[in-house]
Each structure stands twice: as structure tokens, then as C-alpha cells.
């Protein structure tokens, strides 16, 4: 690994050997439905509590990823994971089922790429040969913890986003043909003073722009190097802000396609209840591990930069009137010729 600024350039070609995604019914009605491995037809995921449902999504996605890689769960040397719940209980309880040595991480919705970057670092450095990275979120657990329980029926403004019910996992190793994790940029915490938890996109946009700018500064690459750059969950409010910030910073995003997972996971015309778009750990996870990896394997995309964005607020900090600090982590995935 070579360190340039805040970017790791992996030399030993860590790869995503296999990945799996499990989602809820609303994601199953979205345009990416055919890219997911399993779609539940009920939001309860056949469980008694929302928290159990969120955990089950991760347990299943991790098991599926292990099977798809042709491994058994005993072969997994480390599991790096996290989620949005207090004390990251969904990942921790899923790690109990998995039984692998576990590193719990928290980066809110950026956990998907934070865990993947760390898994790649473990493999690249020789600390491990097979690492599972994964994350999960559920619409009703996130609403309950960060806003209001859905059963309360509280109104939402149009800037609000809709937490994705789903889990995505990837297995990182060296031997195989999957996409190479070429580099990763670890973000700084940015806070421009936004306090509205119903406007996460605007709060997270500066963090995304800062990480993208750092990525191109550190690597010397231009945006045109990638076929696609996607942010995690800026949605319809945050993405235009990020575009504007990057334009001001002189990063020429017009050289590439610049999208957002939160705008890809749902049908924005029909599923209008998602308001500004999708969010949550599961948002960038299911889009990356489901949709983008499939497109890369089919050679429709060759080089992709995923910039997962996270709002690092807690219900307590919000109630005490604190603003929302945000972060973004970028991981570059490249198919070899």
C-alpha cells in the first residue's frame, strides 16, 4: 500500500471475490430489482421486531456472499461491518451468528465504503486473506431512532430521504477475477452547521465534495479516469450541491458520469413516498454490491468510484441542538482487461 495524502493506493490487488444483496419490498419495486439476490415481500422480513429484521438482512447477505464465493463461513478470517443502530447492534449480532473475528465500524451511511476500504487494507497488507465487509439498514429502525417511529405517522418535508431496507456484503481476497479495489480515500469530518435531520443531503454534500476533491488531488487522476462516480445518498437535494461545490473547486466532473445511489435505488417517478431519494447504510451497499458490481462483471462499466456519504449525528446530539457532522469515504473499483 502507498499512502498519498489521505488516499491508500493498494499494490497487492485486493479484489471483491463475491458479493450479495438482500433487500425489502420497496427496493424490490425499484429499477434495480433484478440486480438483487433476494427480495423480501414484507417489510417485517418475517421477524418480530424491526431490529431483528435489519440483522436478518445482514446475516442472509453475508451467508449468500460466502456461498457465492464458493467458501464456507469458517474460511472468513475477519468480518468488518457496521450499521446505523446505537452500539451497531445489527452488525454485532450478525457477527455472533457468523462467528468470524469481528471489527465493528461506524461511519453512518458511509460505513459501506469504510468497511470495504478497511477490508481491502487488511488483505493488501497481508494481515488477512479473506475478509467479509458488509452493512445493513432498515427503514423502520432508522426512522424510529433518528426521527419518529413510522407508526406515529409524522409528516415529512420534501427534502427528507427514505432509508433503504437492505444489506450488501462483499468478500475481499486476492485470488479471483472480481473487480480490483485499486484505491480508497478516507474522508475528513465536515460540518457546515446544518441542523435539520430532514435535510441530510445538503448536510452531507460538502463532505462528499471534499473527499472527491482530495481523491483526485492525491492520486493525480482526473474524473475522466472513471466511467462512473457515484455518491452514497445525497439524493435530489444534495447531489446538485455537491456538483456546485466541485465546480467551484475546479474538479471537472463533467468528464465522467456523476450520479447518486439514493437516486438509483428507487423509481423516482413512481415511488414518490421516498421524497428526495434513498439513504442509509444499505443504500450505497445494495447499489454497489448488487447493481454496480454486476455491471462491472458484465463489462458495461470498467472503472467506478463509489463515494459513500454519512451523517454522523446521534438522536442525543440532535435533541441538544447540535449541527450534523458528515463524512464521506471513496473506494475505487476497477476491472482488469
Amino acid at each position, binding site marked *: 500500500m502507498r499512502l498519498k495524502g489521505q488516499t491508500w493506493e493498494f499494490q497487492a490487488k485486493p479484489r471483491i471475490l463475491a458479493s450479495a444483496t438482500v433487500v425489502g419490498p420497496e427496493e424490490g419495486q425499484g429499477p434495480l430489482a433484478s440486480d438483487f439476490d433476494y427480495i423480501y415481500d414484507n417489510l417485517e422480513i418475517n421477524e*418480530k*421486531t424491526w431490529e431483528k429484521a435489519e440483522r436478518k438482512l445482514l446475516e442472509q447477505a453475508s451467508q449468500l456472499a460466502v456461498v457465492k464465493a464458493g467458501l464456507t463461513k469458517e474460511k472468513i478470517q475477519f468480518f468488518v461491518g457496521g450499521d446505523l443502530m446505537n452500539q451497531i447492534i445489527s452488525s454485532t449480532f450478525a457477527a455472533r451468528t457468523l462467528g468470524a473475528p469481528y471489527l465493528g465500524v461506524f461511519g453512518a451511511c458511509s460505513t459501506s465504503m469504510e468497511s470495504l476500504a478497511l477490508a481491502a487494507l487488511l488483505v493488501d497488507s497481508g494481515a488477512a486473506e479473506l475478509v467479509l465487509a458488509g452493512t445493513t439498514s432498515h427503514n423502520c429502525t432508522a426512522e*424510529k431512532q433518528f426521527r*419518529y*417511529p413510522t*407508526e*406515529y405517522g*409524522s*409528516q415529512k*418535508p420534501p427534502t427528507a430521504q427514505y432509508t433503504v431496507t437492505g444489506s450488501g456484503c462483499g468478500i475481499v481476497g486476492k485470488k479471483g477475477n472480481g473487480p480490483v479495489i485499486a484505491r480508497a480515500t478516507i474522508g475528513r469530518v465536515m460540518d457546515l452547521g446544518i441542523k*435539520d435531520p430532514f435535510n441530510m443531503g445538503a448536510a452531507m454534500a460538502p463532505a462528499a465534495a471534499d473527499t472527491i476533491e482530495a481523491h483526485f488531488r492525491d492520486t493525480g487522476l482526473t474524473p475522466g479516469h472513471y466511467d462512473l462516480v457515484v455518491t452514497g445518498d445525497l439524493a435530489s437535494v444534495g447531489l446538485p450541491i455537491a456538483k456546485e461545490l466541485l465546480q467551484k473547486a475546479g474538479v471537472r466532473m463533467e468528464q465522467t458520469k456523476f450520479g447518486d445511489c439514493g437516486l438509483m435505488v428507487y423509481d423516482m417517478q413512481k415511488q414518490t413516498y421516498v421524497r428526495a431519494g434513498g439513504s442509509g447504510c444499505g443504500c450505497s451497499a445494495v447499489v454497489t454490491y448488487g447493481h454496480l458490481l454486476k455491471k462491472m462483471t458484465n463489462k458495461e462499466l470498467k472503472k467506478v468510484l463509489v463515494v459513500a456519504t454519512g451523517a454522523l449525528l446521534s438522536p442525543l446530539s440532535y435533541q441538544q441542538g447540535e449541527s450534523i457532522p458528515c463524512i464521506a469515504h471513496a473506494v475505487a473499483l476497477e476491472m482488469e482487461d
Partner: protein
Amino acid sequence: MQFLWAFIIGGLICVIGQIMMDVFKLTPAHTMSTLVVAGAVADGFGLYDPLVKFAGAGASVPITSFGSSLVHGALSELQRDGWVGIVTGIFEVTSAGISAAIIFSFLAALIVRPRG
């Protein structure tokens, strides 16, 4: 005619609540408590009863009437029993609403699993 006024006044109270949430970014809980306090203050000045007479359910159904009832009960028991009436009277008029909330929550909890 009272149907029309009930529609207009009731609607206006809701518009005020909507503006508090959308424009002033108050949380639903803050919006609700502010409306309750507003109703209580209005009743203290003797303004809420005439509004109910004028607009009927347009004024008695929104949450503002709960605030007005709290003050109403306290004031009437104050006249009857003296200062201690303020404490005993607050839930005098509103007891039906509060008891109903408890009883129906209990009945609902018997048939469905309460969770958030």
C-alpha cells in the same frame, strides 16, 4: 352556516400548525404543545368559548381546545373550591379525553403487539 365556519376556522388552525412545521421548522411535538398552550392562553382571556360557539367543532376538535379545557376546568374549580381547585380542576373537563386515550390504548394492546 356554522358548517362553513367550522370548516374555515378548523382549517385555519391546521394551517397555522402546518406553517409552524414547514416554515418555522418546529418538530411535531413542539407544534402540538404550542397549539395547546395557545388554546389555554386564549381561554384565560375568555376568547375560546366564543370561538367554539361561533365555529362549533371547527374550534372544539383541534388540539387547541384541549388547552382551553385545561384552563376551563382549573378556573371553574378555583371558583368553587378555592386555590386547591386549580390543581384538582385541570383534568376535570379533559378527563374524558385522557381516560379514553388510556382505555383505548389498553384495548388496542390486548389485540396487537405494541411497539415503536
